[in-house]
């Protein structure tokens, strides 16, 4: 990660055709600024931590254990955690294990569309070091090269119980104000973009999906 310089110019959007470029914003995202009064920030974090909306995007096999998590037996709703169908309403992205290059492209778009501050939890072994698919030509090995991750839960697959524990851990981290993946992404956007573009060959989308 090289730069934190925010004085860089607008985004190039050079994956887009000139006509398309007019349709998309080239503004750079800005990092989240904490409230100047500490108590207020703490309160806001407390609120955030207790209404976590997960994006309903089953990106890999990890999604299979999200079903029990969200239903009667484990009932994550009671912990202030529930799925939302669209990224605009969501604040948590659960990466369900391995990410193929094709899906990674959709993950990036969905992630960028989410409202900040947003949090990423990576499930399973594959986002850590490639997992079972360490030698596959189509899955990424280190997910944090492309999207900042706030929490890792190991397992194949992690069980609903430990997913729940992960949610609680995330809540703790948010309350402590340490869940800074969102800002890391924005502050090092060029580094992340370079990594993303290196593996996504047909980059035909704006550099930041507002």
């Amino acid at each position: 990660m090289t730069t934190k310089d925010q004085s860089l110019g607008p985004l190039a959007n050079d994956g887009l055709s000139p006509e398309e470029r007019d349709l998309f914003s080239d503004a750079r995202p800005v990092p989240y600024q904490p409230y100047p009064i500490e108590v207020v920030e703490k309160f806001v974090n407390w609120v955030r931590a207790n209404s976590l909306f997960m994006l309903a995007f089953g990106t890999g096999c990890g999604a299979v254990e999200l079903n029990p998590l969200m239903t009667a037996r484990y009932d994550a709703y009671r912990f202030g955690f529930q799925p939302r169908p669209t990224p605009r309403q969501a604040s948590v992205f659960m990466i369900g294990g391995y990410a193929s290059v094709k899906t990674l492209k959709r993950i990036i778009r969905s992630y960028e569309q989410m409202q900040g501050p947003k949090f990423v939890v990576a499930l399973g072994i594959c986002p850590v070091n490639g997992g079972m698919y360490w030698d596959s030509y189509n899955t990424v090995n280190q997910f944090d090269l492309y999207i900042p991750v706030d929490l890792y839960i190991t397992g194949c697959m992690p069980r609903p119980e430990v997913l729940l524990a992960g949610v609680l851990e995330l809540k703790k981290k948010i309350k402590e104000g340490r869940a800074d993946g969102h800002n890391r992404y924005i502050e090092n956007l060029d580094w992340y973009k370079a990594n993303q573009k290196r593996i996504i060959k047909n980059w035909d989308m704006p550099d930041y999906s507002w």
Partner: protein
Amino acid sequence: MSLKDLISPFYVWQRAFEKPYTQKHPIQERPGAPRYRGFHVNVLEECVGCGTCETICQNHAIDMVQVEGLEPKPGDSGLRPKFDYGRCCWCALCVDICTTRSLRMSNHYAWITEDPTDFNFIAGADNMSWNGEEYGYRRDDDYHLLRGERVKMEMLAPEEGLKSFEEVMKGYTEEQAKDEADRCVECGLCVATCPAHMSIPDYIKTVREGDYEKGLRILYETNPFSSTCGRICTHRCEEVCPVGHQGEPLAIRWLKRAIVDRVPRERYREILGDEVVENGKQVAIVGAGPGGLSAAYYLRRQGYGVTVFEAQARAGGMLRYGVPSYRLPDNQLDKDIEYIRSLGVEVRFNTCIGREVQFAELIDDYDAVFMAIGLNVPSSLRVKGEDHPRVLSGLQVLDDVASDKNPGVGKNVAVIGGGNVAMDAARVSRRMGANVTVLYRRRIADMPADPEEIHESQAEGCTFVTQAIPVEIKDADNPDQVTIVWGEAEMVADEKGGRPRPVLQEDRMHEETYDCIISAIGQGGSLDFIPGDYRDQIEFKWGKFVPGDYQQTALQKLFVGGDIANNTADAISAIEDGHHAARGIHKFLTGELVA
């Protein structure tokens, strides 16, 4: 659409009065099932670091790493598996294949962290919360990925074997050899323990692949007595074979034999491609046993002129005169020796140092001398009446048999000792029609003889009387007989961890009369031929040479090896001594080695 259809869904209200499905505290309430494949645990003391878990892991999730406080030792590499939980898929193949069953799984499954590099740990060594967990996946007793049973080798039935000196073990068929070689996990733990550090997994692989020529080349890299060792090696390698934890270790010795048995002697030169280019330097070797001839082979390959001095009329040393032909047929020993001699190694038979040739002449006339004279003086019992004419030495009996002389053991024989010489003397006596009783001071498990030999002796009808200490030998009523007095022994543990030691119980004495008593309690060496001016320069301990690196002595030209210079006193150690001395002599004579 009927009214019934409209009402029917309201049936769901019935559930409102039931106990909810929801688990109150799912994180605390639900430990993994007793069989759950959770996080790994490893019993460090049981693990031998063979790395089979690493080999089988399709995810490359396991690294073998050094653990503080664990050093390599025979049968234990000192390495332990380290797991990458960014790779592991909890398939438990590593647990299933674990040779010692030290690797297991706990039923813990929760690990959350912010740092992806955290997910690395050495099971059992790092302090993890699941260490020592009672529940979790273990390999089922009835489930095996490795075969614990050895492929049985055809052998002469004991009653048949007693009729002649025909070789007892028949050797593996090609199929059997492949089958047995298939059991190898290729960990290589055996290599460190083999005195000659033979490339065991590599030659076993050639058996599996049926490439015996390649196998022979691998054997001869470290051992020019492969036919011999394939039959009578003490196979320490097998003692440390991790597959042994599942039942029986690989029959490494028999697999070596399987290679040699399939390559005719005439083709050795062509297969091994040994070319001798004389380099003009001369080396004298004393003793044509395995040590001496091994050195001769490796020196000759490098172009040294080699002269071997042998006191006996035939080459082979203890292999010839101490090992009976039902274990090692003469032609098999000859196969090895002839090949070495065929390279142009000169052997002077019936030439004894200090008699025909003087020690000083060797030192003066040759560029280097390798001495592997063996142990050929039987230790005596030193009990009262030992000089009785019906007390024979085990070595003498074997020597007589090897030279086609009748040792005259009689009908009722007692053999004293538990080593291979004792077993051989007993079995030879059985073949001459005697009833044999083996008296041994310790227990069968403590016997230094090969387990196979012990087993076969028993099968051939030798009676074993253990924990019996000879105390006195007396004249019997019949002058052709002899009486032995022996006392029972209790075993006490050795404080320093050596083998347990027997202690005589004076109140429990026995007397027995036999036609003869064969004493085979061990051998010593004789070093009297070394003149005084040299001896002060050489280091000795307990009647043996103490060589330095590369088997060299302080008398720089003199290299020593074999039984007279090591504490293991077996063929394979002698072979390695010879090989190692050859390395040393080459280095010495090319100026690389400065003592």
